[in-house]
């Protein structure tokens, strides 16, 4: 624990870099434009929250960051997203490589119908790591990292479907940690969970931001306020406001942001 905090402290003293620089991103599902001229700079090693009413394009945007959006047929984009300086929307950018560096946690826990161990070892295995000893270490480390080790260490060979919803979600986070991503994308990771599990995941996110850059979509504004450094407010496919979280929640610059935050629509 101490060592990692120490490491994180050193990290914090360095100047932070931009992980994702989105410039003039447009996105269409067929003829329906879901993202309009998005410009966002996301910094490393902090939590960036994306809020906005349902259907405003939050999921679309976060899925574009690891090009998962390509799985939807008929999606077109223009503009660019630089990840660590390279345009990932460039067709020559290999998606598999991008996704080994950018992990994703989904709205509904989606463990594989395999054992807990196999779930976590899946990522390293598909990337060619077969050494059992190393895999064991990765699995333990990742499960610890996701604060679920103590709960599952005695039943690693059991099917992941035996876990509760909250545990499953933390397992999915562990699975994502196993390939040591640079960025973790989370699309409403707690919306399917009960309040206690939600709290655990939130604590975990706080812990993880020391080592990872985290982008989290949430429809829960308190959550955004609690865990994020910066917040982007999306509306109808546009970024209305993007700034420090405490600023957005105390003195929003835009009327629409204020209306949303104060619950006038959403």
């Amino acid at each position, binding site marked *: *624990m*101490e*060592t*990692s905090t*120490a*490491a994180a402290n*050193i*990290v914090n003293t*360095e100047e932070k*870099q931009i992980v994702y620089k989105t410039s003039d991103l447009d996105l269409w599902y067929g003829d329906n434009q879901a993202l309009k001229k998005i410009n966002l700079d996301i910094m490393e090693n902090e939590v960036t929250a994306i809020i906005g009413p349902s259907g405003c394009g939050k999921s679309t945007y976060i899925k574009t960051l690891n090009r998962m959006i390509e799985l939807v047929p008929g999606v077109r984009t223009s503009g660019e997203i630089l990840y*660590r300086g390279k345009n990932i929307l460039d067709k020559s950018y290999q998606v598999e*490589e991008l996704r*080994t*560096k950018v992990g994703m946690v989904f709205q509904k826990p989606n463990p594989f119908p395999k054992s807990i161990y196999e779930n976590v070892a899946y990522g*390293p295995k598909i*990337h*060619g*790591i077969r050494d059992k000893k*190393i895999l064991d*270490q*990765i699995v*333990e*480390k990742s499960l*610890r*990292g996701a604060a679920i080790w103590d709960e599952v260490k005695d039943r690693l060979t059991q099917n992941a479907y035996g876990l509760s919803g909250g545990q499953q979600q933390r397992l999915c986070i562990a699975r994502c*940690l*196993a*390939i*040591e*991503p*640079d960025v973790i994308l989370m699309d409403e990771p707690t919306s399917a969970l009960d309040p206690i599990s939600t709290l655990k995941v939130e604590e975990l996110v706080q812990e*993880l931001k*020391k*080592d*990872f850059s985290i982008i989290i979509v949430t429809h829960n504004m308190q959550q955004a306020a609690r865990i994020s450094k910066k917040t982007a407010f999306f509306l109808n496919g546009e970024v209305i406001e993007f700034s420090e979280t405490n600023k957005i929640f105390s003195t929003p610059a835009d009327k629409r942001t204020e209306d949303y935050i104060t619950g006038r629509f959403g």
Partner: protein
Amino acid sequence: MVKCASHLVIGMKGVFKLATQNTNSFSVQKMIQEKKKKKSAGGITEKIMPYILFLTAAVSVLTTIGIVLTLIFETFLFFDAVSIKEFFTGKVWYPFSETNGSFGILPLIMGTLKVTVIAAIVAVPIGLASAIYLSEYATDRARRIIKPILEVLAGIPTIVYGFFALTFVTPILRDIIPSLEIFNALSPGIVIGIMITPMIASLSEDAMTSVPNAMREGALALGATKFEVAIKVVLPAAISGIVASIVLGISRAIGETMIVAVAGGSTPNLEWNITGSIQTMTAYIVQVSQGDVGYGTTIYYSIYAVGMTLFVFTLVMNLLAQYITRRFREEY
């Protein structure tokens, strides 16, 4: 740790928390990148698999093409010896003649027709009654018992039905109808009817159960009896699925082979009577295949001409069933 912390680039942050557990820290990302470099060949599988899979999918298309081409080519060879006109309008099918046989397919079609009509007369009412019973009246428990039994019935090999027709149904029918010959149209017709009943029952039941309950409740609330609901509300609403199931069942009956080969006889004729021996298109193909007919003779090619006719009949029925389901799909 210090070394790791000084690198702030991608992949180097993998040391998170590891140090607390293991002294030999390592970076998974680094290992992944190394493995990537080593085996860039993995991309080949990724690229060629879609093509290999496409080839397997192409086999089913090739099968259809193979069937059509085979039938067409061999049928053409048959038409070198027999005129198309004789084949389709001739009233005598008598291929096994020393000099030159007669190849008028009408008697074979007549045989198929008789058996099919008898089968439909048996299967349609029973199949529909079962479907109505299962979807409208049966309790969940009854349904859970009866449906698997119907599945069993549908899975019994046709040779077994043929045996049943010849050694059980025919003798019983001969007790009732003394003029019935050992080989006849009636017995295999009835048994084919029994064979296709489960298919009609289960497809029709599917169509009826997908009629929304709200429609039933609407009628029941007006005081309609269950029977009235079944006949006046559910049947009309599910009619396209029901008709399609009947058409598919008839298509099966037309193509059915072993039951008629065993119990129908081998006397092609154009008579309307159903107590005498007949021959269907399928039974003729079996008869020739079993005998020692030389390759390349007119008789050899005749089975393809008959097979072609059979294929067209069933194809038309199947397309009709698909058309009915698609054209009259109920929108609830």
